[in-house]
């Protein structure tokens, strides 16, 4: 495990090709209290399955998604008002704030199902999930952390990508989940949500 963490840290560092802007997590906390906390929780640990957990999420991922919401490119009605007229600096600050919080598994996790875990693990290996999201699924830069996320939210997200209802910065995710059945996605979500 320690090796995994070290490796992930090295890879994450290598992926940052540019010096990170001086984002201010303290300012981010102020903005988060006004705009984010009501749904995502001030601790970034939403306990509503449809609302993603942001604690420990990659700052690069949060930043890009908030820009896409603000610019009307990724259309999720609930995210429209909270990102409206938010400055780039505040977006980066909010991202830095949530990224700085420790992540933890949801309290309402489903019990671990051995068959689903095995099937999910096999699909993750075949689809190379760990290549981008790293073998410990902590994510890096614009590629999100998958662990400690709601299982239902992960399944919802992958279904959106599969059905072409969501496109990221590029179409890597659409390709990665192409052709998966609902049962495949459910198993993959179960496996990813139950990583330590």
């Amino acid at each position, binding site marked *: 495990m320690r090796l995994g963490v070290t490796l992930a840290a090295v*890879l994450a560092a*290598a*992926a940052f*090709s*540019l*010096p990170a*802007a001086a984002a201010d997590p303290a300012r981010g906390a102020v903005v988060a209290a006004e705009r984010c906390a009501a749904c995502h929780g001030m601790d970034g640990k939403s306990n509503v399955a449809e609302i993603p957990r942001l604690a420990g999420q990659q700052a*690069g991922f949060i*930043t*890009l998604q908030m*820009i*896409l919401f603000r*610019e*009307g*490119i990724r259309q999720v009605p609930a995210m429209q008002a909270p990102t409206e007229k938010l400055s*780039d*600096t505040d*977006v*980066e600050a909010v991202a830095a704030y949530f990224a700085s919080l420790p992540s933890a598994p949801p309290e309402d996790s489903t019990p671990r199902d051995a068959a689903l875990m095995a099937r999910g693990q*096999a*699909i993750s290996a*075949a*689809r*190379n999930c760990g*290549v*981008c999201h*790293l073998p410990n699924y902590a994510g890096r*830069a*614009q*590629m999100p952390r998958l662990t400690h996320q709601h299982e239902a939210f992960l399944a919802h997200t992958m279904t959106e990508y599969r059905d*072409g209802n969501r*496109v990221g*910065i*590029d*179409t*890597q995710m*659409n*390709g*990665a989940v*192409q*052709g*998966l*059945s609902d049962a*495949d996605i459910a198993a993959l979500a179960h496996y990813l949500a139950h990583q330590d």
Partner: protein
Amino acid sequence: MKKLVMGLTAVMLAAPALAQQAPVPGWAVGRPEGSTLAPHAPRLTVTPLAEVPVGAIRLPPGFQAEVFAHGIPGARMMAEGPRGTVFAGTRAIGRVYAISRNPDGTTRTRIIAERLVQPNGLVMIGDSLYVLAANRVLRYDNIEANLDNVPAPVELTAAFALPTEQEHGGNHHWKFASLGPDGRIYTNVGVNCNICEFDRDKFALLVSFNPDGSGRRIEARGVRNSVGMAHHPITRELWATNNGRDWAGNEWPNDTLHRVRQSGEDHGFPYCTAGDPDPQFNAGRNCNQFVKPAALMGPHTAALGMRFYTGTMFPEQYRNQAFIARRGSWNRDKLSGYDVVVAHTDAQGNVTRVEEFLTGFRDDANQRFHDRPVDVHVMRDGSLLVAGEQMGAIYRITYRR
């Protein structure tokens, strides 16, 4: 090369055994075990001027670089209006910028269009700016007189009838646009996958249209995804850059530069790439039956925006030569590209050499990059603009004897 083919064969032979599981998508076949290659994160927030890496730029003797404009996240392909406004398209952030010069030499940037899907293709015809955003084609008439109050554009989408984002499956649906010497709009229709079987009359094309969207003509087939094209100022032939496929190794294929001598030529994709048979999709085709690339542009370098230098500020040796922005690799273990190169041609229009022009953005020692050049534009004064997408900046290159 042989090892790669054998590796792929092994993967394909093994595939039926996995058939009861979800199939591996075509694009992922050939991805080496344990690879951590992934696209680099774009930056869609404003980069402060102090962080714009103009100081990293290296140029041949006599050339200087300055920041022309900054604070324009995701700035990509450029077009210039008759009054000197520089327009810049984008991809993910969905905006079109207008950059005008103040009397004191500083610039002012306005957002003239937003919430568009990949508005990357810009072309100026007279006073009208055409914006190609995936399959949408919008015409902004008399745009430079209305920068503060942009009227609704004329919608030409139905007339052009380009394949939709959905038909592309989200793959290579962004456009480059260029005005031909014949007054037609030239653009690309990229392939709807990394590599696959596809309709060769519909995808992987260079096409041209009358400005009203009528008279579609296929200029070249089998060009995977061109995001840069220009007509040679003397021969009037169409030239285009092209992005090679992913996941076939660090050194293969090269990105390519294409010269179209005759409308309708076949340049070979997916059967042949960079003059070689594709290891998966050759389908028994002899690559000699296709037009060979005019030049190899380096593996995975992402050769994008290109223009011939028609100004007089630069030394004579650059006149009518092709300046090409290479955005830089992601699908390669060691970074390649992140520069601007010049493809020199002889009197017959054959490429004699490709040489580096603008370097310094790629940090080989640390495998990092400072910016990603995506387009070049020759200003009327002969200076050259270079759009840096990563840092949302446009650099201006000048020459002093």
